[in-house]
């Protein structure tokens, strides 16, 4: 099934499948603009250096050679900047580095010189059609073109790996090179959670799908209001309350947290939980009946 989200699974030679996050046009356009800027700055630097050289060393005929060299450097820079950068810096240019994206092969492998050359040369076709500025304003000399990038955009939208024409031909894709590295395991501070988890039956084993659901719930519950948490958690815990013989008015959110705690954080070797002020309370339905037998059970 074609996934809605923009990840692509890659199988490594170690036979592990991992996911890459694809980079769309809104990440790639800034990267391209930064690259254009970087190229202009390099060009300005080259011209400056050549000009200084020409000024410092007065030698007959040198200036024309410098001019020729400037032309050549300009040519190399405009046409092979991306190729050189990507093949040397492992799929990154300056703009890609700044935007945190990288070019890899569609098999997840590294990009080689041939592929980098293909995808960078074909960029000319990707940026088509070009608007010629002197059609709008006669004062502008007819050398300034404004690339529209429609072809690249259309193929990026139409292909599953968000490839432009150059990527299609070279067999590459651009992925997000994540750099924020926090390792999330939700901490649970509420003392009631530990207390409640000690009442969970010891023989209850959590299934894999249940564990996944619990982890997602524990990670996301911070974004929900208390009412919404209860509403979601109640649907998941109704049959568990019956099974554990807990009282009906127990907070479902608390129960979900304690299940999470039991599964992910608690370990048997640790000493029994200090219940403190909560020692007298019990969530079990039979304890409720013993403590105040006349109170009817609240209907949920």
């Amino acid at each position, binding site marked *: 099934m074609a996934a809605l989200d923009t990840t692509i699974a890659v199988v490594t030679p170690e036979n592990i499948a991992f996911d890459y996050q694809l980079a769309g046009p809104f990440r790639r356009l800034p990267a391209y603009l930064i690259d254009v800027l970087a190229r202009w700055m390099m060009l300005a630097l080259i011209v400056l250096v050549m000009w200084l050289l020409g000024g410092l060393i007065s030698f007959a*005929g040198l200036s*024309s050679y410098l001019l*020729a060299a400037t032309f050549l450097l300009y040519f190399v820079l405009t046409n092979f900047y991306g190729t050189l950068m*990507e093949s040397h810096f492992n799929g990154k240019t300056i703009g890609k580095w700044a935007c945190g994206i990288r070019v890899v092969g569609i098999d997840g492998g*590294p990009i080689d010189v041939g592929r980098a050359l293909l995808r960078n040369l074909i960029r000319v076709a990707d940026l088509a059609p070009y608007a010629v500025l002197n059609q709008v304003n006669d004062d502008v000399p007819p050398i300034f073109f404004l690339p529209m990038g429609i072809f690249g955009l259309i193929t990026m939208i139409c292909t599953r790996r968000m490839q432009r024409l150059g990527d*299609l031909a070279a067999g590459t894709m651009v992925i997000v*090179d994540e750099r924020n*590295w926090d390792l999330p395991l939700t901490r649970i501070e509420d003392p009631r959670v530990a207390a409640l988890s000690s009442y969970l039956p010891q023989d209850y084993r959590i299934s894999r799908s249940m564990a996944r659901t619990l982890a997602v719930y524990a990670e996301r519950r911070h974004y929900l209001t208390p009412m919404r948490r209860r509403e979601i958690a109640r649907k998941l815990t109704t049959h568990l309350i019956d099974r554990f013989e807990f009282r009906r008015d127990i907070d479902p959110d608390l129960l979900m947290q304690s299940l999470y705690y039991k599964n992910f954080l608690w370990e048997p070797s640790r000493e029994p939980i200090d219940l403190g002020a909560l020692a007298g309370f019990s969530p079990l339905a039979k304890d409720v009946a013993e403590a105040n037998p006349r109170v009817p059970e609240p209907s949920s």
Partner: protein
Amino acid sequence: MNVANLLEKRRVQWQELEKLCDAMEVSGRTAGGGASHHRGGAGVSRFATLYRAACADLALADSYQLPPGTVSYLHRLVARAHSQLYRSGRLNPSTWVDILFYQAPQQIFADPCVRVATLMFFGLFTLSLLLAFNDDWFPGFADRVVGQKQLEKMEEMYDQPLFSMDSRTSSLDHYVSMSGFYIMHNTGIGLRCFAWGILIIPCLFTLGYNAVALGAMFGYMAREGVEGSDNFFHFVTAHGPFELTAIALAAAAGLRIGTGWFATEGLTRIDSLRQAAVKAVPIMAASVALFILAAFTEGFISPSPLPYLLKAGWAIASSGLISFYFVVLGFPRQTPTRAVDGTGTA
């Protein structure tokens, strides 16, 4: 053992792997971080061990019941280490020799796109040259194609003699900087033809337009009584064969990619396009090699005050070389061990 404990234990190694990744991203080797067991070969093997361990953790994530946040962390960690372990390859000279001297001529000889592009380029070039040359039969052809201003500018450009005893330095200067410009300009045409090839029609247009324009210029300069005519041919003869062939070849490589859209041979269109691009790489490599040869010729021989005979000799020799390359090296061989389809034999 619970998940928190497991994570606590594994986390040490994951963070070590992250540190190694950091070092490799910055300097390309594992020597960062400063620890002695991260330097040199020990660092590489440590990195590989940690990477395999992280892979194993990811594979077992489901049965460890790791939370999804941790799993996505592991995905990113493995992806990051993967792209450092399998880095982009450096240039391998033996591969390039194989591509240039084995795959490219075979591919060029067998590829109909090369014939189409070459015929179109040189056909239009010759036609336009003849039309522009004979001003009596086809009056005003060169003016209309290139433009009167351009032609006058060109005459002016080649006005200075390439070699004479009195004004030697100045005119040599002029031609040296000009050759720099023309290397850039003509190679640019070739690269543009290649790039447009994926859309086919713009490629044919660019190729045809440049063939006609170049032909008209050549024809105009070859007319009797045009100033700078001698200097023009003095300048262009030596590098002409290399450069014009290279432009045609670049367009052919582009067209080869473009044909991938419709000549799918049973593949999906996108796979077929990629396959066509793989076939186009040797042709493009040959074109780049010719451009480089042309650039050297243009830089050192064309603007030099060598006699015209030597330059013409060089042009003939280079034409012979190209023919040898295309026909002798390219003639289909009966060796079944090596694939001719360019799918990477080396």
